């Protein structure tokens, strides 16, 4: 693809115009609106010197391809590339094909900041799909705000942030936590909770919200223990004994990374059978992606609270899953964050088309209220606070590594990154 574009650049204006017309024509076959690049002169849709030409627009992809986070971020990169390819197949954005420049954050936060600067200052990308951990997002945030970049961030995270330069396509903490706790309380009659997590900001903030909700908003429920273990901790026998002693109805686990695998293997080896009535294991940190490392047989019966599961049976999702597998291989699994990453390019496309411009300020202005009916998770909508309205779902892990959806909220849950009464 990049070849014939450089071809175009070396040729005369007339040929470029013909070609652009040609692409727009084929595109218009697919698209009812028939957006043609010629209708949107570059000088008008790009007044701030972004990397937009008459037939292409360049965006950045900034994730870790190497280092410890590569395991999690690979899926996001794959989803973003799939979305870009599909958008291009439909004729691109404002008649322009999306090209991307991919940079490797290498699981190192200063590297993320440096690469973000490179993408914004040198490459002048129109937007960036990227980051995964909160630490990497916090590292690039000043860069995006200084150079007025626009970031689509895919991961569910702890909230407490609302930047004009970021669209958060994952859930903030309250969207992921509250509905799940209410569900386990109402349908399973759970009263006592044991909170457990890896020791950093996301599990701690999430558990803080969970504790406030359990103690203040759920009748007769209480927290019987709260524990944190260093990232990379691999020995959970002591805490498992503590859990036995306290006999909680629910083990609420937010363990991440390699620790996750150790935790579930040892839980199973200790004879805690999650396929039975009690204790219920409810997690917000294990997607289908993580189950591959844990092993389905080790987590069989656990519940996870997410907004997306690969097993969702709606038309959007069936199409998404088969397109994803066609592009990246049949053995791929798709987790919550991967789906959220897939939304990024589509939301940006919708915002650009609504604004009729690639200018960051205009895209930002156009973003709130953007709706996406084609999202694999169903219908989503961008809130004033740059987060997404989306449903919360509970799935039960199966031995084959997939989740069976057992509950979903009736309505979209409003994002609330600064929840009152939970601080």
């Amino acid at each position: 693809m990049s070849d014939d574009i450089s071809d175009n650049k070396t040729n005369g204006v007339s040929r470029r115009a013909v070609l652009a017309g040609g692409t727009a024509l084929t595109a218009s076959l697919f698209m009812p609106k028939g957006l043609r690049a010629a209708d949107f002169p570059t000088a008008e849709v790009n007044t701030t010197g972004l990397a937009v030409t008459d037939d292409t627009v360049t965006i950045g992809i900034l994730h870790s391809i190497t280092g410890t986070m590569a395991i999690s971020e690979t899926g996001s990169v794959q989803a973003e590339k799939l979305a870009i390819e599909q958008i291009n197949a439909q004729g691109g954005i404002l008649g322009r094909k999306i090209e991307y420049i991919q940079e490797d954050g290498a699981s190192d936060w200063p590297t993320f900041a440096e690469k973000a600067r490179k993408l914004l200052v040198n490459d002048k990308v129109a937007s960036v799909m990227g980051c995964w951990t909160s630490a990497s997002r916090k590292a690039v945030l000043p860069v995006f705000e200084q150079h007025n970049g626009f970031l689509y961030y895919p991961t569910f995270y702890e909230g407490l942030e609302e930047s004009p330069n970021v669209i958060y396509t994952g859930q903030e903490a309250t969207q992921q936590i509250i509905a799940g706790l209410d569900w386990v309380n109402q349908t399973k009659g759970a009263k006592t909770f044991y909170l457990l997590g890896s020791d950093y900001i996301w599990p701690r903030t999430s558990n803080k919200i969970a504790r406030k909700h359990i103690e203040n908003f759920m009748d007769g429920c209480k927290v019987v223990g709260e524990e944190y273990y260093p990232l990379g901790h691999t020995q959970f026998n002591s805490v498992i004994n503590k859990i036995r002693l306290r006999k909680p109805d629910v083990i609420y686990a937010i363990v991440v990374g390699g620790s996750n695998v150790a935790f579930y293997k040892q839980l199973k080896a200790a004879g805690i059978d999650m396929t039975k009535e009690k204790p219920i294991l409810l997690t917000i940190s294990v997607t289908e992606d993580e189950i591959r490392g844990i092993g389905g047989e080790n987590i069989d019966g656990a519940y996870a609270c997410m907004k997306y599961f690969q097993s969702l049976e709606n038309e959007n999702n069936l199409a998404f899953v088969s397109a994803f597998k066609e592009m990246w291989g049949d053995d791929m699994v798709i987790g919550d964050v991967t789906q959220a990453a897939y939304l990024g390019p589509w939301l940006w496309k919708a915002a650009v088309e609504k604004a009729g411009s690639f200018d960051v300020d205009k895209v930002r202005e156009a973003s709130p209220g953007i709706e996406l009916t084609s999202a694999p998770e169903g219908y989503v909508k961008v809130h004033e606070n740059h987060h997404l309205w989306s449903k919360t779902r509970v799935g039960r892990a199966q031995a084959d590594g997939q989740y069976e959806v057992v509950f979903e909220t009736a309505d979209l849950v409003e994002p609330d990154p600064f929840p009152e009464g939970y601080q």
Partner: protein
Amino acid sequence: MFADYSMAELGAIFAMQGFAGLILFSVFVLMALGLAIIFGQMGVINMAHGEFMILGAYVTYLMSNLFADYMPALFSIYFFVAMILAFIASGLLGLFVEWAMIRHLYKRPLDTLLATWGLSLILQQTYRSVFGAREVGVSIPDWMMGSLPLTDLIEVPINGIFVMVLAVGISLAVYIMMFRSRWGKQVRAINQNRVMAGAVGINTEWTDRLTFGIGCGVAGVAGSAFTMIGSTGPTAGQLYIVDTFLVVVFGGAGSLLGTIASAFSISQAQSIMEFFLSGSMAKVLTLLVVVGILMIRPQGLFSLKLRK
């Protein structure tokens, strides 16, 4: 905190907690033995120790797939085959690394730290390229998962027992090799005085290579066993390296008995504190105590008596 529980429950919890400590002890011993041989006997700071362990884990992963696909009838015993192959694979890689890299650095022991750290990065990226960045799931035979109910309240994880038996077995094997075999005698001689050992006719080059290889092989077996309790991914080796060095340095480099004593004290301290405090706090306190003791006794718990 114990007021709500009956005596029977408390007894059961203490029994299981004691057992958790013993399992942690076995894990530490398995992790540290290979390094104790390499660091203790040869003075090589092997930062790639974790990656040698993970090589063993990946061998186990390959074997589990191979047996599941071609010899499902024998799946329940594949683990033993995998451990032997893990020893061979990590050992061979160890021999090669010693020949290609380590032997040029014996006169500059601190440089081994940088060189082996570089090696660990190379190995990590190799695993990532070959097996993918995602963690792989190793299926374990059913009989090794699950727990053994001793009484109504006490349940003992079977993989914990397996790790304990393995730790004892390997410790014995290393002890016999070190103190009852010709090779062990040569290793100790070289450790005491390399020039003199060479002068009396010991092939120091070959002995070094074999020592490094055996140390790496033991790491491979440990990695293979850890597929039961931990994750198998390109960077999983990093999870173990700090604890491993902690155990070996605290025990006193050069003393295998020290390594075992140190593994025991650190694991017991940690597992008891984890029970009463939070996990992070237990780790902090353990490290503080270890640092404190090392300040008073820099040579570690046990040290060889040398004339200085």
